[in-house]
Structures are given as structure tokens and as C-alpha cells.
């Protein structure tokens, strides 16, 4: 899938062909309006929601390829919205936050967000993050050396089908978690640093937040490990990164 770098004319072409739909949840209407304009210029089909409640309603009515969630929402918080969305869907979620406190970012990631951008964001940065997530959410063509299936313990990963099974039963993972698991499985027994994972899974070339990796690993462990506090497959290599062990 290819997206033009920028330009309204190019965007029009894409929108005709197959517009990526984004739900932008933001209570500040000035930011919401300008954000929509920027994203539309980048070729996305944008719907707006001024509150978490409105967002849930809209989300029920139709599907979206990606949701942008402002954390500071009146009424139901962005965190709760993330959790509600996660219960029903593996849609990629990018949270938008004005605070950079560790607490907020970690809480957002734990609530199920795939990535985050900080206000004030550059339009280029925001669309880059969205593209990276979408690329990740769809099968990658350039994956070479990918096996048909990976098995470790009672866990089975089928990269092409996008399915993870434990004890023969399918486990619900988000697309980001799936990509992360595949990346680790492809390098079974090899330590991958957080920076390497940030680059390969999230598409950050630098200054990615390592907490993204840590949160997602934690979440993956609750899904594939028998005892997430005593992982046997998805191991932390102190000071180095993570490793998947059969």
C-alpha cells in the first residue's frame, strides 16, 4: 500500500481509491478542526468525535482503520475509551497527550494504546506515526525469511494468517502485539534491543520511547505466558533488550 507524501491533489486520488478512515477524538474543537484538515490533506478520511461517549457511538456504527484519542477528555477519559475500544477491537490506537509524565504515557499504553504523540505535534510527525501503525497493521511485503509458523512451548504463531494460538485456542492480540511477537519469533534465541524493536515494529528511526516496547511486552506476556511474572519464553535481558526462547 502506498501513500503520497503530501498534497491535496494526491490525497484526492487516494480518497477515491481507498481512503484510510481515522476517528479523531478531541474535545478542543480548534485542535480537532485543524487536525482534521491536516490529516485530510495527508489523504486520510477523517471523522470527528468531541467526547469519548460520542466516539464509542460512532465506532459502533462503522469501522475505522485507526483511532486518535486525546487523553484529557471531559467525562469518560481517554484511558477508559482505549480500554473500551480494546475490548471489542484490535484497531490501532494513537493517543495524543499534552502531558509527558511517565504516569500518563504508561497508563495510556497499559490501557491499550499502540503509540502516542505529544502536543504540540508536527503534522509530519503525526502522519508518520499513523502510517507506521497502518503499515504494521497490514501484512508487510518485504518480510523475508519468515516461516509459515513459529512454535514455542504451547504457543503457535501463524504470521500469514495473523493468528496466535495457545493450547490450540486462538489468543486475541492487537496488530502491534502481533508484529512484535513475529519480530521476536523471527529472531528466536537472539537478543533484540529496545531500539531495534522500536525501529522494526514501530518504525521509529530514533527517539522512540522504550516504554512502548516494555508495555507491549508486558501485555504480550499476559497472553502467551502461563505465569506472566515468571516468563519462560519472552525473556528480559537486563540492559540489553528482549529475547524469545523456545
Amino acid at each position, binding site marked *: 500500500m502506498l501513500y503520497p507524501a*503530501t*498534497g*491535496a491533489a494526491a490525497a484526492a486520488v487516494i480518497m477515491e481509491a481507498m481512503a484510510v478512515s481515522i476517528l479523531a477524538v478531541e474535545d*478542543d474543537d*480548534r*485542535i480537532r*478542526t*485543524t*487536525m482534521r*484538515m*491536516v490529516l485530510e*490533506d495527508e489523504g486520510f478520511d477523517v471523522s470527528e468525535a468531541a467526547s469519548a461517549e460520542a466516539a464509542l457511538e460512532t465506532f459502533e456504527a462503522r469501522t475505522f482503520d485507526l483511532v486518535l484519542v486525546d487523553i484529557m477528555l471531559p467525562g469518560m477519559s481517554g484511558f477508559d475509551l482505549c480500554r473500551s475500544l480494546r475490548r471489542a477491537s484490535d484497531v490501532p490506537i494513537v493517543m495524543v497527550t*499534552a*502531558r*509527558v*509524565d*511517565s504516569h500518563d504515557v504508561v497508563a495510556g499504553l497499559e490501557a491499550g494504546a499502540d503509540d502516542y504523540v*505529544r*502536543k*504540540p*505535534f*508536527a*503534522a509530519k510527525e503525526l502522519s508518520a506515526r499513523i502510517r507506521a501503525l497502518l503499515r504494521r497493521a497490514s501484512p508487510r511485503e518485504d518480510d523475508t525469511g519468515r516461516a509459515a509458523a513459529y512454535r514455542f512451548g504451547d504457543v503457535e504463531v501463524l504470521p500469514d494468517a495473523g493468528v496466535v494460538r495457545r493450547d490450540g485456542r486462538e489468543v486475541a492480540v492487537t496488530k502491534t502485539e502481533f508484529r512484535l511477537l513475529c519480530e521476536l519469533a523471527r529472531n528466536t534465541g537472539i537478543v533484540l534491543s529496545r*531500539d531495534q524493536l522500536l525501529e522494526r515494529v514501530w518504525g521509529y528511526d*530514533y*527517539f522512540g520511547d*522504550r516504554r512502548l516496547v516494555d508495555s507491549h511486552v508486558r501485555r504480550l506476556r499476559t497472553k502467551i505466558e502461563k505465569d506472566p511474572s515468571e516468563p519462560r519464553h519472552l525473556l528480559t535481558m537486563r*540492559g*540489553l533488550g528482549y529475547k524469545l526462547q523456545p
Partner: protein
Amino acid sequence: MKLNLRPARTRSLRFRVTVAFALAGLVLSTVVALLAYTFSEHYLVRQRESSLQRQAYVDARVLRDDVQRTGDVAGGLASAERSVDSSVVLSYRGSWLGTSVAIGRDQVPDGLRRQVQSGQPARQRVQVNGDPWLFVGLPIPALGIDYYEAFKFDELERTLGVLRASLLGSAALATVLGGLIGIWASRRLARPVAQVAAASERVAAGDLETRLAPQSDRDLDRLVTSFNRMVDALGQRIDRDARFVSDVSHELRSPLTAVAAAAEVLRGRRDEIPERSRVALDLLVSEIDRLRLIVEDLLELSRADAGVDELELEPVEFGEQIRQTLGRGDESPEVRVDPALAGSPVLVDKRRLDRVLLNLFENARAHGGGVTAVAVRRRNGHVRIEVDDAGPGVSESDRSRIFDRFARGAASGQRRPASGSGLGLALVAEHVRIQGGRVWVEEPPSHQGARFVVELPWRPA
């Protein structure tokens, strides 16, 4: 407000207290010794004089009895047995007789002679040839003899000499003891002062958690309490300032986000805009970018100030890290890595190191005509990174100010118009400081451009 303190010309408090105690010891012991000596001397001399006088009476009576029996004055005088240290001189019918060569008529003091002649017994101390003598004069009216007996007095002088020496010794000892007590007391006195000084230094170094323990002494406790209160107030004030900066930055974020996005929309339609408006738009876009950078850096600085983020040490290979960070720019300067460090990772906070390197390179590009060379060495338990640029260098007076927030060097007039946030080097200083390192700028040996030096503690992985 400045406290009116005397200039530091005077000696240290401890020295002065010690000297004061020693002096007090000296004065007190001297006074006591003088009194003791005077009384003892007086008493001893009186006692000795009266005992010698009694001796003279006995000797005179023996002589009188002898002379009355024999009628021979000279013979009686010669045969009389006396104590070794006494000599007798007498005047008998106008002539003088003596028992020794040393003591004769001339040695008998005139006053004594007159008193004896008038029929009064008397005694007097006299120096003869430098020796102390006691003369006892007695009239013997039965024979018409004026009897004088002279006793050498030096035995007592020796006793007094010993007394003097021991009193002098005691005085000296008391002085030394006084000094020692002075040292001990001044140490005791100076300890709380030293504690306050050490605590102040810690506070000055940025440790605002420093507090002094309460004291049982009332005066000291007041000092301790007011010191702690001062640190509290200082901490609150710093917190308030930091919170203000942080709040302002946060408040700026939302409007800035909307403005930046709006400008971005306009930029996407740049071609549809008339030439003149385009210039304004470009200016708008670039300044909004800068504003965003300032807000980002301000927030990062206030986080660093507040110490929110902990150090996350992990093994990093410096050469590789530098090349990677440099790779994001256009230039390809020489990177020299100490062979002792090549291939051996060091524990650092990678994110902070990345920020430091990126900001230093950014600074070199913006103000120094680009990075010309980067070197990594090991030196005295530190890893040292040197970043050289090709700019006009940094003047002596700007070298410490350049790391200040929003510092604008005197040379900035010649530099490119401000493009960064003005906080890049302040952030470098903060991130280096948090890792326990130092950063400064110096002139490279080639005298061309500037050299920024970062020293981080060497922690082998």
C-alpha cells in the same frame, strides 16, 4: 541584603579560641604561682631567719660563758664550735675579731652595727660577693662585745630556686593544658558550624533534601531550625518557579498545536497563495516550528530540574552511538575512538547521551559551521567526548555563559540568526550533570573553531 561580616583577615575561630584558652591558662597559672611563691618565700625566709637567730643566741651564749671562764676573747672565739656555714665577727674594745677571711668588719652592714651598738639585737640580709648572707647582731653587755654572726643563706636560696622552677613548670603546663582544652573546646564549638557549612555546600550543589538534625543546645537549635527553614523556603521557591515554567509550557501546548496544524494546512496550499503572502506564510511556519522546539525543550528542562526521570543505565558503544547520531546530519567528520574504548561498551543513560550528542552536533551546525571532528577518550576514570567545529570559536567570556538558558553570546551577532530553541546547550548541561559528568567549551589545540568537551563517569559494562 548583605550581612555585615568582618573581613576574613582575622584568623580562624578555632585558632583564636585555642590561643585564648592557652593565654588564660598562662595568666591564671602565673598569678597563682606568683602568689604561692611570694607567700612561701616570705614564710620560709622568716622561719629560717628566726632559726638562725636562735642559733646565733646559742653561739653567743657559749662564747660569753667561755670568755667569762677564761677571760680570753680571741681564744674563746677560735675554739668555739659553730655550724659550718657561719662566721663570727665581733668588736671588742674598739678592735674587730673574725673567724674567717671572707667576713670581717667591712662586711657588717652599718645599720646593723648602729643598732647593735645602741644595745638592740638585730638581723639583716646582705649580699657578700654575690652570695646571700644573714647577719645577726647581738650586744653582749656583760663583756662589752658586739657580736655578729653571719650565716650563709644559699641553702634556702636553693630551696626557693627549686620552688621557682616547679612553679614555672606548672605555669607552662597549665598553658599547654589550656591550649589543649582550647583545641578540644573549639572543635566542639566548631562542629555544628562545620555541619552547617557542609549542609550549605550540599544545598548549593542542588541537594535540597538536606536538613540538619535538631540540637539539644538552645542557641545551636535556633541556628539549625532557621537553616532548615531557609532550605524549605528555598525548595518551595524553586519548586514554584519550576512548576510555573512547566505549567506555562503545558498551557502553550494546546493553542500551539492548533496554530501549528493550521499553518501546516496553509503550507500544503502554498502554491495557491499570492507571492507576498507566501513570504509571510514561510515565516509563520518556521517560527511556529521554533516555538514548538522551545516549548518541547522547556518541558524537557523542567522535567530534568524536577528530577522526574531516573537514570537508565545501559551498555553503549560510544563510537557506534556517535556515528549513528552523526548519520542523521549531512557532514561526515572524522570520529576517533580511543582503542581502549573501541568495542567495549560503557554504562550510560542512552537517551540522555543521544540528546547530548544531538544537541552538540546541532549547535555545531547552527553556530560552528558544522562538526569537524569527534573524539572519544578515556581519562582518569572518565569517558571524554570532544566535539570540534569550524566556527569562529567561543570567546573566553562566553564560555561559561553559553550553557545558560536562552544564552545569547556576544558573538551571536556574527552568528546565524537564532534558529534553535536557545535551550540546546542548557539541556546538554542538564543531561550531563544528571549523569554525574561535566561539560565545558575550550579552544582546540589548532586554535580553529570551538571544542565542546563532555566528561562522563566511566562505568564499564
